[in-house]
């Protein structure tokens, strides 16, 4: 599975991690919906950590489309909230 951390890099992640990533993603959504910034930050950091530690960075000379794109690591809570209701990072 190819995962990109937006504005940073792409990683090759073992397929077993997809499930865990999905869980974290769902939890992140819940935290955002609950307006719980601290919890969101914690889960989001865990997501990034999972990709960075388990993933193998994709070389600059390799070209892949990502299966999953995770928002930039400096995503603010406001931006996270917008991802679900508004224009998001990239305006429509």
């Amino acid at each position, binding site marked *: 599975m190819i995962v*990109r951390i937006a504005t940073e890099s792409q990683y090759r992640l073992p397929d077993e991690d997809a499930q865990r990533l999905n869980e974290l*993603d769902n939890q992140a959504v819940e935290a955002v919906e609950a307006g719980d910034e601290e919890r969101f930050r914690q889960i989001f950091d865990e997501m990034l950590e999972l990709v960075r530690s388990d993933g193998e960075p994709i070389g600059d000379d390799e070209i892949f*489309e990502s299966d999953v*794109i995770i*928002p930039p690591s400096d995503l603010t809570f406001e931006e996270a909230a917008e*991802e679900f209701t508004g224009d998001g*990072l*990239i305006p429509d």
Partner: protein
Amino acid sequence: MAGMGGRMSTVIKAKINKLLDKAEDPGETLEYSYQRQMELLQDVKKGIADVVTSKKRLQLQQQKLEQQVVKLDTQARQALAANREDLARTALERKQFAQTELQSLDGQVQELERQQQGLVDKEQKLRTKIEQFRTKKEVIKAQYSAAEASVKISEAATGVGEEMADVGLAMQRALDKTENMRARADAMDELEASGAFDDNLQLGSGGDDIDRELHQLTEQSVVDDDLARLKAELGAGTPPAGELGAGEKRAEGPS
């Protein structure tokens, strides 16, 4: 559209794809529009230059503030030696304010350095991928049937297109951050022009707007401590450092 699974990521991915669709067909863009790629790389270069300019400006402000801190400290000393505690207090308040600004500037400069490095890395990455795409395209054409080659080239083009979109996003975020800091730097310059860090502390002055504002902005306790420190150093008739907590000797600020 997407279920609960991967909702957040899916949103971003969908948007990037949409961006690509809108931009043009990435395959065609990459096949034919060398110019479009060069434009993007130029944009990134401009973005980096922008970040560097802002950083330099902040560094200049840092230097000025550092000089101010030294100057104000000296002035406070002189004021105290001349038994003008009110004046010393004002100088120390300004010094404290300048130091707070300095700390904030340090953080901003570091952030801009991170942004700059990030953009340089991304530019290099994109450049490499574009070159790789050119090479790969020819190899694919030579090795596969026309139909297969078309699919494979399109896949690779989508990958490079994603990289292009990501570089665009990184640049936009870096510039947004730079923009915020520039607004702050403007405010600092204005403040400086208005004399907030003015080194000419007039005897008897100290009741103007800036001073009142400074009183609000400054943490009195820090100034008190600083004042006590100076007094102790100068031996200006105040308790030694060990008794600073007593606070009885705290003089009123300028009225």
